[in-house]
């Protein structure tokens, strides 16, 4: 690129980076600021400390005393969603990719359809349904909700992935007398491991981040997930402890961040495959 256009590019990129990164920088800065420095508009602190994090993690800060409880609730929900979603999606995607039967096209259409519709529109009917079954304030309702919202994407991506596996391997195994299920578990799944791990983290992140359904379906304080916990610190206390609130928000953001950057390749590839293919 020529000098002027290169300068222009860098100039715009610096502006964009400022816009996209400042809120994140400010959050981290607030979380390590000493109390007397908290309301300082200076974008720097001379005596950073980890007290906010320490007091959340050792449980001595009263408003965040449920941190570990909420963390384990979030983990229970997210891990169960991962297992259920992967079970449903692997079976479903393999069926769509490798078997010919009537209605196959319809099934892949509804997978795409449930990926597209906004889930928030179904929150209230879903709540009514779950109260009918007596599942309110029960993890199972949240696990079911998140499973149905994460599995369509996983089915879609896995189906594309199964298509890309050469069918000859499976044909050869069939001729050797292996059953379909053996082929799936012994041949297809091992070579699909990276995609399955990436999609598991997708399901994990989605359930970890979920707010609306957790808000609607859970209500006793011992059952709340971390997503509700970090926001209630800001929405339900009169004098908000902003330093701790920011520290908690950072802690909450770390697992998705790590997962996201580890599997970034798959997250984009997955979306491009099928759903928004050119």
């Amino acid at each position, binding site marked *: 690129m020529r000098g002027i256009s290169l300068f222009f590019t860098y100039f715009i990129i610096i502006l964009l980076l400022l816009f996209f990164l400042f809120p994140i920088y400010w959050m981290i800065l607030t979380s390590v600021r000493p109390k007397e420095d908290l309301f300082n508009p200076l974008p720097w602190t001379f005596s950073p400390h980890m007290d906010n994090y320490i007091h959340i993690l050792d449980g001595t800060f009263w408003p965040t005393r449920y941190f570990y409880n909420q963390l384990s609730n979030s983990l229970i929900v997210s891990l169960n969603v991962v297992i259920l979603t992967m079970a449903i999606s692997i079976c479903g995607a393999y069926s769509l990719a490798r078997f010919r039967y009537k209605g196959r096209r319809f*099934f892949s259409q509804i997978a795409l359809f449930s990926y*597209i519709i906004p889930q928030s529109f179904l929150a*209230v009917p879903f709540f009514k349904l779950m109260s009918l079954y007596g599942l309110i304030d029960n993890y199972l309702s949240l696990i079911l909700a998140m499973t149905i919202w994460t599995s369509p994407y996983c089915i879609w991506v896995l189906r594309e992935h199964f298509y890309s596996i050469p069918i000859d391997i499976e044909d050869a195994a069939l001729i050797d007398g292996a059953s379909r299920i053996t082929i799936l578990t012994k041949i297809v799944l091992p070579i699909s491991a990276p995609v399955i791990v990436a999609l598991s983290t997708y399901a994990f992140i989605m359930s970890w981040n979920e707010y609306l359904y957790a808000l609607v379906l859970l209500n006793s304080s011992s059952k709340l997930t971390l997503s509700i916990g970090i926001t209630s610190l800001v929405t339900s206390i009169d004098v908000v402890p902003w330093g701790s609130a920011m520290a908690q928000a950072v802690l909450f953001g770390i697992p998705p961040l790590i997962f996201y950057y580890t599997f970034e390749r798959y997250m984009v590839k997955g979306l491009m495959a099928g759903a928004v293919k050119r």
Partner: protein
Amino acid sequence: MKSNSKDKIIGYFLITPFFFSFILLVVYPLFEGIRIAFTYTTPSGEKVIGLQNFVKTLNHPEFRIAVYNTILFLAIAVNIKMALALFIANLLNKEFKGHRIIRGLILLPWALPALTSLLSFKWMLEPTWGVVEYFITVLTGQKALLLYHYNTAMAMIIIFHIWRNTPFWTLIFLSGLQSIPKSLYEAASIDGADSVRLFRHITLPQIKYLYIVCLMLSFIWTAGEFNTVWILTGGGPAASTHLLATLAYRFAFDIGDFGMSISTILFALPIILLLAISLVRIIEKRG
């Protein structure tokens, strides 16, 4: 692979868990919801009242505001976000020093949970000590109270939405741009086309389909926005910044009227379903 009848049974068997959960957790709640919309339902019980909920909702001032807000939000947020994403994708598609690192950094708002960043925005916009309010006070001599006036509160909701979602679409457009053959650009450059022309005559036609699909997808997803409004303003001031999804929550759980809550959603649902179904058709045709 040929499918005999035994294979067909296995095929049906393997798709059943998904199909069953779709019926049980999406279709059934939807129809149950439609039924509830024709009843007067409070936490204590229900009775059938016909179309009254729809009339009540339609005449409710908060519903009218929420419809207006949702349309405004969709028109502004979606278009700016998508155009900005395409612009940034174009910028990042060029080869320059550090473009990998910059790509990774710009993705941060998308990689972080929305809740985390919403709390950060709420803190920056906090009336007494927030850094944004501080600088506005320094510059203008008075507080702006951005989250406490309708116009600025809506603006903040839109800005957050753009801030959070642009990186995601940038990524999608970037991989779309990278699949355009480089030879097209080279040929046109030799013919003396400048970068504006390259964009108009090569990039745009090549990316048009992707852009339209993404625009529709984003439109549907954005119509269901809940978290941004709920955390930033809680629908305030005076219930003026509600979108359809947050108003439905408010009707159900603050006022306790499930019929009105669901009828709020049902007014928008036909448009969303129509869009979703046509999008499924479009993607299928190309895929």
